[in-house]
């Protein structure tokens, strides 16, 4: 966020082809766009449009078949798997539709985990507790495992986890897809609040209401951007 000129993510004519037994699947067909620091971008489109592929690509979980993609000005083509993994760990916070918390760990430990990965030791700063408190998880709930929490609570824990290593970019894949409307509202307020404090957010959704929280909407269909 120090350099306002460098896009957080930049895609130039990106293609993604999956080779399947039944033939090649063209998930992305020449996608070009960039996201600047501080933006709140929603990516919309029907299922099968390629938005999940796009999301995985931005999240450094997948690499383009053709075209260029830059993360903080760095080409992902030149990054090894370990470098991409470390980038995910330190610079991207993931928020999934299915929350994707680690069932073996408590809420507190789920938030602490990315910090341990980064610093190689258990937390002694109290940050996991602060983060959990800031998303509305009280002290008692912190020692529960994900299965003992409601969907809304799990998503709050997931947001706290996404923020653990203070990432510049939050990637949200249908963050309210598994929540009722009241919960969705609260989660979206939380995200808007985080964005207003300078964090870049890219969100995939097919819910037009959720998309209204974003200040920019990209519509994708059949692997191409059709509206922006």
């Amino acid at each position: 966020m120090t350099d306002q000129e460098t896009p957080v993510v930049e895609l130039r004519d990106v293609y993604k082809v999956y080779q399947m037994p039944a033939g090649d699947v063209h998930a992305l067909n020449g996608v070009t766009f960039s996201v600047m620091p501080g933006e709140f971008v929603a990516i919309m489109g029907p299922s099968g449009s390629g938005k999940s592929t796009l999301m995985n690509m931005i999240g450094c979980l997948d690499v383009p078949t053709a075209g260029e993609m830059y993360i903080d000005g760095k080409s992902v083509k030149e990054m090894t798997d370990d470098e991409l993994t470390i980038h995910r760990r330190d610079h991207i916070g993931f928020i999934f539709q299915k929350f994707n918390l680690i069932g073996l760990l408590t809420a507190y430990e789920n938030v602490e985990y990315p910090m341990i990965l980064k610093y190689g030791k258990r937390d002694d700063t109290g940050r996991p507790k602060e983060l959990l408190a800031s998303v509305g998880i009280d002290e008692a709930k912190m020692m529960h495992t994900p299965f003992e929490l409601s969907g809304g609570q799990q998503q709050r824990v997931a947001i706290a986890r996404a923020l653990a290593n203070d990432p510049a970019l939050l990637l949200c894949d249908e963050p309210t897809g598994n929540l009722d409307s009241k919960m969705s509202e609260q989660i979206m307020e939380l995200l808007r609040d985080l964005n207003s404090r300078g964090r870049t957010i890219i969100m995939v959704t097919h819910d037009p209401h959720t998309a209204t929280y974003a200040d920019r909407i990209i519509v994708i269909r059949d692997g191409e951007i059709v509206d922006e």
Partner: protein
Amino acid sequence: MSDKIFSPVIFDLSVRNLRLNFLRSLLAMIGIIIGVVAITSMGMTGAAFSEELTGSLTGTSNSITVTGISSTGSGPNSYMTAGLSTKDLRNIESAVKSVTENYVLIPMYTGYDMVRPAGSDERMQASIYGLSTADIESLVTVEDGKIPTGNNGVIIGRQLADDYSLSIGSRIEIPQRNSSTISVRIVGIMANSGSMAFTFSTDNAIIGTTDWYERFHETGGLYSLAMITVANLDDLDPVIAAIEAKMNGRTDRTTDDTVLISDARQFVESMKESIGMISVFIMALGGISLVVAAVSIFNVMLMSVNERIREIGILRSIGTLRYQILQMFLYEAAIIGFIGAVIGGILSLIAASVVISLMLGDVSLMFNVPVLMYVPYGILIGVVVCLLSGLYPAWKAANLNPVEALASD
């Protein structure tokens, strides 16, 4: 980064997963326990056996045996073509004397025969020896009865007496070549040496005087062998060299050696080697159970990977490196392996003590370094086997595509 070698948080995840799948982990562990017990207790028993052999043979390690291998002017008797003549014995004795004065030389007749206790149909294999009365006295410990003199009878081993319920006064029949039998009275029973001795297998022996032996065996005046015992072990090699030079040295005259010198130490070595080979073979059999254990751990680990594909996807997406995933599964294999192998090591101490006391009758044989060394080795092998069988599943987990892993349910 220090967590390249050991990562507590990854280790913690492994422990939690093992606890979550406790029964499955336990079954895999039992496999390793059985495998480790099998190889370790077998190895320990073999080593104990070897220890016992060495211990029992140290008494004879300062002796050598000289056997005649070519007959000097033998008669038409094909039964006895080789032996030591009195001249040979004189030569041997002078050779020994040239090295040391502290020696014992015992010439003897030896043979194997199928004999049977009088009034019985049961035949048994026995070693029959003919020695002078004085030599019998110096070689054996009488437990019961007396030393045979002249033609009055024989002294037999305790083992033989027990096996065929023979006692002082019983008679043994020794069949002759012309289908007659010679009957001999038992006058004494030797103490059980409880072991194999080099020249003498006293347990299974029938010992009589030379006079008695000559009565029914055509010896041609040739002794079968001479046993030479030196007081000082350091004299053994010079004595062997001296006899070798005196008896076999005249290569200009004959191509064949006259005598064969066997050294108890060689015998001990070759016996140890044989026992070692048998132990390895038995351990290999035990190793089969370790292979079975390895397969079961492989299976458990693969199941663990397959059940946790999604979790692996999550871990990878939030920044867990490949090698950390690899570590996580290897830790699981190592924990199962370590706990299993240590329990196996402890149990094999018990198993080995039972087997050793049943087979060798002396548990104290177990408390020798070469025997006990099998425990750490067994544990190490158990852990290594677990790690090896966990390698592929761990590698598979580490190389999962995070996108596909996340999408799985």
